């Protein structure tokens, strides 16, 4: 992403936004800036503050969840293990009673969920779905108002980011004043995305957040007082540190070797081929746009675009364009692919693997899999989950490749190690650390799994979504339609997406067929 940190690390300057540099700073602010320049990099750059804030949210939630665990946890664990044993025994019987099995599984799930307790769970507001009355979005499934939860998110985010903003030597009151209206725009974006037809068409909040921002910036014009809270990169980087906790490497082997072959072989091949095609054949002038489109098309849509966009410092317009392309094609593929699968009578497991390997967005993969059948849904979402985890590796590799090879030194020489370190997006350390810590926790048996699940489901996943939404609102507020037009010139992004996705469709289908019908047919049977 366009980074304030490059300049900040070179000059110690953090207020390098042109709109701010034009303004004369008052003497007290200038004094403050001098003090900030003297601070070590890990206390004055956005990258490091994203690590500290994301880390603080994760550690605080983890600590609260652990300290609130039930007193009879070991008894609950024994009960859960006994239920698992019983469920497996019933499944092994050749003519098991499906109803009995479902009841047992339900009981077992409840027992697992009861192993831990996250006290923050009901305190984080999440805008719900609605059909005809938008006010329904402000009530949870139990009929309770979510307004207190929204206020908690607003106050919590405002407080945490104020610490970061203050740490970087910027005006906290100006940030707080601006943050509230930006947050309100994020609420509107979630409400628009929560309409059931829109939500179930995979038109995610990212699109509406950008559009709401664009609507304001291109009609009324973005009010200057909002600028301090328009912090696209800061929100994205902090959100990515939180996303790191959801990248659980233990899930990588969920489908054993078939899953690895389909997800870990095809995806990198398509990603690299598409990037090379964009650079060598289409000769795209922006390698970062090329990379973001290649990643969102081959890995997992919007989340991959956000992660790789941050890793290769893509411009906000490039991220918007990549997301729009991805969402547009996802809607088409989500509708057409299940119809094609039914038309040709494709095997459900193969179909699931194909859907999971090709449709960008996780939600759309599930919707398409559900249209084909239960086995297709299981395989499709599991393949997509493995691809989701790939974004950690992809983002890390892209950031290394970018600082080492793409962003060459001014004289064209190979970049030295110290320079690679200087340019490396430091928030990636938080992203990777979160992933490793939470992956380790999930390997610690049912209690570890349940704790991670409680932390992610109850808190961090929701905050991460709010941060990404704030980032997309910021993108919209900073973007002018005219700035987007040059990216459509010559139709290269569209050509890149279509060519890359065609390769993805062909390779994924071949690999799914080969692996699940020729090499591991018994594994495919086990998933039916």
């Amino acid at each position: 992403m366009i980074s304030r940190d490059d300049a900040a690390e070179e000059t110690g300057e953090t207020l390098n936004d042109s709109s701010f540099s034009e303004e004369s700073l008052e003497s007290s602010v200038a004094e403050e800036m001098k003090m900030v320049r003297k601070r070590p990099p890990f206390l004055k750059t956005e990258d490091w503050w994203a690590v500290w804030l994301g880390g603080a949210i994760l550690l605080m939630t983890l600590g609260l969840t652990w300290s609130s665990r039930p007193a009879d946890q070991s008894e609950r664990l024994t009960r859960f293990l006994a239920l698992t044993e019983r469920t497996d025994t019933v499944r092994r019987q050749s003519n098991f009673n499906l109803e009995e099995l479902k009841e047992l599984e339900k009981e077992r799930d409840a027992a697992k969920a009861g192993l831990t307790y996250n006290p923050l769970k009901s305190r984080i507001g999440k805008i719900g779905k609605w059909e005809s009355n938008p006010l329904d979005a402000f009530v949870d499934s139990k009929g309770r108002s979510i307004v207190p939860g929204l206020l908690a998110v607003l106050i919590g985010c405002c407080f945490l980011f104020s610490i970061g903003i203050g740490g970087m030597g910027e005006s906290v009151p100006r940030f707080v004043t601006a943050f509230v209206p930006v947050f309100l725009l994020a609420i509107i974006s979630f409400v628009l995305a929560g309409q059931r037809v829109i939500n179930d068409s995979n038109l995610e909040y990212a699109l509406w957040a950008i559009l709401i921002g664009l609507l304001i910036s291109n009609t009324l014009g973005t009010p200057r007082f909002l600028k301090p809270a328009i912090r696209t990169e800061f929100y994205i980087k902090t959100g990515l540190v939180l996303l790191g906790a959801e990248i659980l490497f233990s899930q990588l082997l969920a489908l054993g070797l078939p899953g690895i072959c389909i997800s870990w072989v095809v995806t990198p091949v398509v990603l690299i081929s598409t990037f090379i095609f964009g650079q060598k054949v289409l000769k795209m002038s922006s390698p970062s746009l090329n990379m973001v489109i290649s990643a969102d098309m081959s890995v997992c849509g919007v989340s991959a675009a956000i992660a790789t966009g941050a890793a290769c410092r893509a411009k906000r317009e490039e991220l918007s364009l990549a997301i729009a392309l991805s969402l547009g094609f996802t809607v088409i593929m989500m509708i057409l692919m299940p119809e094609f699968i039914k038309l040709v009578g494709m095997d459900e497991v193969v179909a699931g693997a194909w859907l999971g390997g090709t449709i960008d967005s996780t939600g759309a993969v599930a919707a398409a899999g559900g249209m084909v059948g239960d086995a297709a849904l299981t395989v499709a979402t599991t393949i997509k989950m493995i691809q989701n985890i790939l974004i950690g590796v992809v983002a890390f590799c892209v950031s290394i490749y970018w600082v080492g090879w793409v962003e060459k030194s001014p004289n064209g020489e190979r970049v030295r190690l110290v320079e690679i370190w200087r340019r490396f997006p430091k928030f990636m350390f938080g992203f990777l650390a979160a992933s490793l810590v939470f992956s380790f926790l999930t390997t610690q048996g049912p209690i570890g799994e349940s704790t991670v699940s409680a932390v992610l489901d109850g808190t961090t996943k929701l905050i991460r979504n709010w941060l990404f939404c704030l980032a997309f609102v910021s993108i919209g507020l900073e973007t002018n339609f005219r700035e987007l037009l040059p990216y459509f010139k010559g139709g290269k992004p569209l050509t890149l997406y279509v060519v890359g996705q065609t390769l993805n469709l062909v390779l994924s289908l071949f690999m799914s067929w080969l692996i699940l019908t020729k090499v591991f047919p018994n594994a495919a049977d086990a998933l039916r």
Partner: protein
Amino acid sequence: MPPMRCDRTTRPLRSRITSFLVASTVLLVIWLGVLPRLAQTPSLKQYLDRNEELGIDPGAKFYTELPGMRRIIERVQTAHRLHGAEFWTVSNRPAVEND
């Protein structure tokens, strides 16, 4: 609060406010009028209800956002517990036909 100054537009204020109001009205008409009616279409209603029943949230960006993901992971883990070897060893039997 600092004065409200705006960026990147030189159009008269009246024209900008009109554009904003027109765009907002279009959004309101679509979201409050068209989409609720669409949601009542039998085929679409069936699709929406089925997604809810299966724990599918098509708006999910990441696997952790899918309400039904836990059930799916449990199902795959069960398949692993019962048929673990099949996921790690190449099969000797001929290809499976659709059954």
